[in-house]
């Protein structure tokens, strides 16, 4: 059966949250919510169990560790390339190399966080949802459902009874 998309536009956080909960209670799983600000309520309602975790932090961790390793690798390797004692200090003098390793930890950790954000949030997104309403960046909240054409009427009623200002397809 052909899948169809429905969008409910809400003026309030609580009514939109209620709609998401009711949809989930019905067993609908392909829900997308739109909001002008990040909302704990939406995240909790969408997972059904507390705040979800994001894999972005794995990108940060891996990037930061690569940064630390490459900082030490670059400084130690390049010092050994010219194996000459200067100033009575060891050729591989770790304390000053910590500075380079630290800065590269932050640099690569930050850049990988950006990469992680792009990958997980699927940005830049060339074509977002065609149902997007420009008011979602102002003061409206959206609940978008992908459902079978047969269910359409029931879901539309559900969105309206939860308090949607308008429902569009």
């Amino acid at each position, binding site marked *: 059966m052909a899948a169809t998309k429905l969008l409910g536009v809400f*003026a*309030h*956080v*609580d*009514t939109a949250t209620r709609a998401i909960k009711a949809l989930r209670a019905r067993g609908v799983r392909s829900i*997308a919510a*739109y*909001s*002008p*600000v*990040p*909302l704990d309520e*939406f*995240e909790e309602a*969408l997972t059904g169990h507390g705040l*979800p*975790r*994001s894999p*972005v*932090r794995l990108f*940060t961790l891996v990037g*930061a560790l690569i940064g630390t390793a490459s900082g030490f690798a*670059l*400084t130690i390797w*390049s*010092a050994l*390339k*010219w194996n000459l004692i200067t100033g009575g200090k060891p050729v591989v*003098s770790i304390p*000053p*190399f910590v*500075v*380079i390793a*630290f*800065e*590269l930890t*932050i*640099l690569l*950790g*930050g*850049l990988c*966080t*950006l990469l992680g*954000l792009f990958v*997980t*949030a*699927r*940005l*830049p*997104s*060339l*074509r*977002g*949802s065609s149902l*997007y309403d420009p008011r*979602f*960046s*102002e*003061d409206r909240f959206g609940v978008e459902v992908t459902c079978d054409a047969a269910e359409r009427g029931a879901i539309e009623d559900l969105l309206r009874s939860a*308090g949607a200002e308008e429902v569009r397809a």
Partner: protein
Amino acid sequence: MSDAEPRPRSIAGGAHAAEPTFADVNRDVLATLHPPGNLYFAWMCVVGLILTCGILAWTYQIFYGMGAAGKRTPQMWAMYITTFVFWIGIGHAGTLISAILYLFRAKWRTSIYRGSEAMTIFAVLTAGLFPVIHAGRMWYAYWLIPYPNERYLWPNFRSPLVWDVFAISTYLTISTVFFIVGLVPDIAALRDASTGMKRRIYGMLALGWQGTDRQWRHYRRAYGLFAALATPLVVSVHSVVSWDFAMALVPGWHSTLFAPFFVDGAIFSGFAMVLVLLIPMRYYFNLYAYITDRHLDNMAKLILVTGLVLTYFYICEGFTAWYSGEHFERASYLFKWVGVYAPWWWLQIFCNSVAPLVFFWKRARTHIPTLYVVSILVLIGMWFERFNIIVPGLAHGFYPYTFGSYVPTLVDSGIIIGSFAWFLIQFLGFVKAMPSVSIVEVKETIPHPVRDGQHHH
């Protein structure tokens, strides 16, 4: 707020209720991007003219050499490095507001963080010019990039100057990424509110942001991680800058005090610059509903605290010189007090240790002229603090044969004044191209629209 006081008004007209609504925030912040009036262009012309003078001065220096900038041994650092350290320091308050206060969940930061963070980027971009200007033959600036020369000889990673390259470039990169990521949802709001060519440009910059739950979920986590990375970074950057001095054996420089001393001074001067920029911005854009007296009060308190800590460091500096029992340390310190640069030393003490004390009075913390005057005094004081570390420090080394004073020239003064114009022209351009108050973050701190019952956020 009592009834007698005027209601905060937005630029788009109409008094707000007790607190702005979501739609008010969009309207008021987007109103700051309306086509500017003649006053704006007049300012742009003045700033552009000063910048042109600075560029001409630099051209002269490139043509005739570093002697034009008054460089003579031992005064090889003089005003360029002074101003470099000054501008890097200015940036730190922006990161403090955007990252550190974010981690502390200080909600009052939301309306001032965007402007402060823009200030950070522009200050670092200004500071970044100075090593290049200072290097003289600036067409060899790429030598700063760590790569091996033709004999496979790498840069000396034990040198603080190489650490500086890593610290400053990391700082610029991470601050810029953090700043742009913060801007994306706001640019989406701009896109949705504009038409035609503007809509296409903002649409591309918004990266297709639609505010879906998926986008927000990862966005928030990434944002927190950026803040967590930027926080130790900002402390490291000015510490590394201070080690440019502290790793050298020059009397008065070779001290473990320098890293916290520099970081604190950086934040102190940065807050002053935030006030210098935000007070006029609030006035011209009529953002009284967002940048309130509470913000000014908090910032004045932070200036007071960092100023008192700085005073403590000044006392430590003197104590260290005396307690060292070392002749050169003592002589170098005494030279600051009574030598040829003494007036500037006492000006620094007045601006940084005495002037901010006025903020012990609550009225002074919200009195605009007082805030403005003290902020400018703090900026002057902090510039002279760096001057007083560099110039008298180098003037009075270990051996009288190496003593030597420095006198500014028209060329290096011109370049330094030009750097202020370069900073301001970026900021002036920014406030008309991008939302200088964060739409999303301000909304997060005001009551969210609910139909039934109470909502807390």
